[in-house]
């Protein structure tokens, strides 16, 4: 074999090999036709260019310039009247024929629409997800919830759910989701003004307690994590939030933990105005299944190590 062909093969293998080794295929091909075609395109690109160029370099080495020159000559530059290279002409003709066919027949017959394609893609994936989702173990649920959390929630709440620090004040910028810590000041405000930020139907009316001393006692108790002796006035709260503060599904949130019901309600209908502004309506982006998963993950405590 001639050296130049060997060099071409080595170049091709080196380039593709280097790409393969260096590429951290984190996304994975994922049985995704788009991924496969992209890789195929890159491979074809290298091979086609190297080998076509090699063919002509070979001609530089062995062939000789021949043919009739045209009459004209510009600044000493002549032109041969050679025919066009056969392979080039044929392929050019083929691409034109293909283009005409595709444009007049192929594409209209396929009746392609990108939105139609999106609808099909989403429908197919949702169907397959629904099928798999039927038999999830609790641990699988947590792992999947973590995946959703890392993509959608971690930018503010941090990958461990502990929130991140404000660059100026050092305050935590989004709630620490590992522990529901209601400050006294906040509880007092909610009792006086009422609240409907988490999105529970009805919400909490203002002034459920009227007396300053009562409000102070309840707020202190809740800030303390509902430990110690329960003030009698808490009974008013307990009718909805539960006497132990664990909340009642669909009625009122837990005061002690980010439980599944709280997270789900917040993500679907809440307009939570937190330390750093209004929390986004994730329901616009997340599916009901994803909300289910992320709620389970948060309720478990985002910083908790998961079993493999």
């Amino acid at each position, binding site marked *: 074999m001639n050296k130049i062909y060997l060099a071409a093969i080595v170049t091709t293998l080196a380039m593709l090999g280097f790409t393969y080794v260096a590429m951290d295929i984190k996304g994975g091909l994922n049985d995704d036709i788009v991924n496969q075609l992209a890789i195929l395109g890159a491979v074809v690109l290298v091979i086609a260019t190297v080998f076509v160029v090699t063919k002509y370099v070979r001609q530089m080495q062995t062939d000789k310039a021949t043919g009739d020159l045209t009459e004209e000559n510009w600044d000493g530059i002549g032109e041969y009247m050679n025919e066009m290279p056969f392979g080039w002409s044929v392929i050019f003709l083929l691409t034109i024929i293909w283009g005409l066919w595709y444009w007049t027949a192929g594409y209209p017959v396929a009746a392609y629409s990108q939105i139609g394609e999106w609808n099909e893609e*989403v429908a197919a*994936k949702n169907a397959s997800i629904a099928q798999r989702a039927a038999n999830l173990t609790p641990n699988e649920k947590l792992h999947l919830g973590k995946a959703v959390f890392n993509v959608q929630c971690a930018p503010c709440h941090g990958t461990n759910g502990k929130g*991140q620090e404000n*660059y100026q004040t050092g305050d935590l910028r989004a709630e620490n989701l590992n522990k529901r810590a209601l400050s006294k000041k906040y509880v007092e405000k909610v009792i006086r003004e009422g609240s409907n930020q988490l999105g529970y139907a009805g919400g909490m009316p203002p002034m459920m307690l009227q007396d300053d001393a009562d409000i102070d006692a309840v707020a202190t108790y809740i800030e303390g994590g509902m430990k110690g002796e329960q003030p009698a006035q808490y009974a008013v709260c307990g009718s909805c939030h539960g006497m132990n503060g664990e909340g009642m599904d669909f009625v009122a949130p837990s005061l002690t933990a980010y439980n599944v019901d709280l997270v789900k309600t917040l993500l679907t209908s809440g307009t939570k105005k937190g330390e750093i502004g209004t*929390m*986004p309506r994730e329901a616009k982006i997340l599916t009901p299944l994803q909300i289910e998963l992320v709620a389970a993950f948060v309720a478990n405590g985002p910083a908790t190590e998961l079993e493999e």
Partner: protein
Amino acid sequence: MFHWLEKRPFFFAVGVFVVIAFAGLVEILPNFAQQSQPTVGTKPYSTLELTGRHVYIKNSCNACHSQLIRPFKSETDRYGSYSKSGEYAYDRPFLWGSKRTGPDLMRVGNYRTTDWHENHMMDPIGTVPGSVMPSYPWMFTNLADVDTAYAEQLTIKSVFKVPYSMGDEKILIPMEDGTSETVEIATTLAGANAAALEEAKLIVADMKNQDVKDMVAAGKIPEIVALIAYLNSLK
């Protein structure tokens, strides 16, 4: 025939021009014939939002951020529903971008908040560890150019009939829920500045930076406030 052309530069040039101009006619005119219609719920930008859009352009945010959500599940999951043509009806210029060094911002108003942007524009890497975005501290001190945005609003209202309400003239814009709204612009430059300041006050209520708050209280609008108003409007 070609050899004949090669000796006649004028006809040669005409020939080249015809050949290259042809594609433009076929490709571009059909879409122009049908004026870009806004989708229901799409409103023109308010004075402060448009001022912020100019800040966005001034700093070439579009060099790294796209505003175009393609119809793939992976994109609609990440950024929200795919883009529709009519949503861009009031975008002059369009800001689709051609490179996503940072994430798409077409609907960033749905999932980021004023305070998040405030932190992020000052210290992007502290806010999102691993980010390669530079910080933009000068936006917290440079004053926004409301005048130019107002001039642009007047221009697009008179030249392109963008449905701004002005003075007694009310132009209703249909919303998704069947109601309709108006987007008002002031009748005078002073009025436009006053209106922008009112919008700015709503934004700084959610901000922490005391210098910025003081500036707005003193009737001045820093670029960051206008930019956040614009980003919040992207939905």
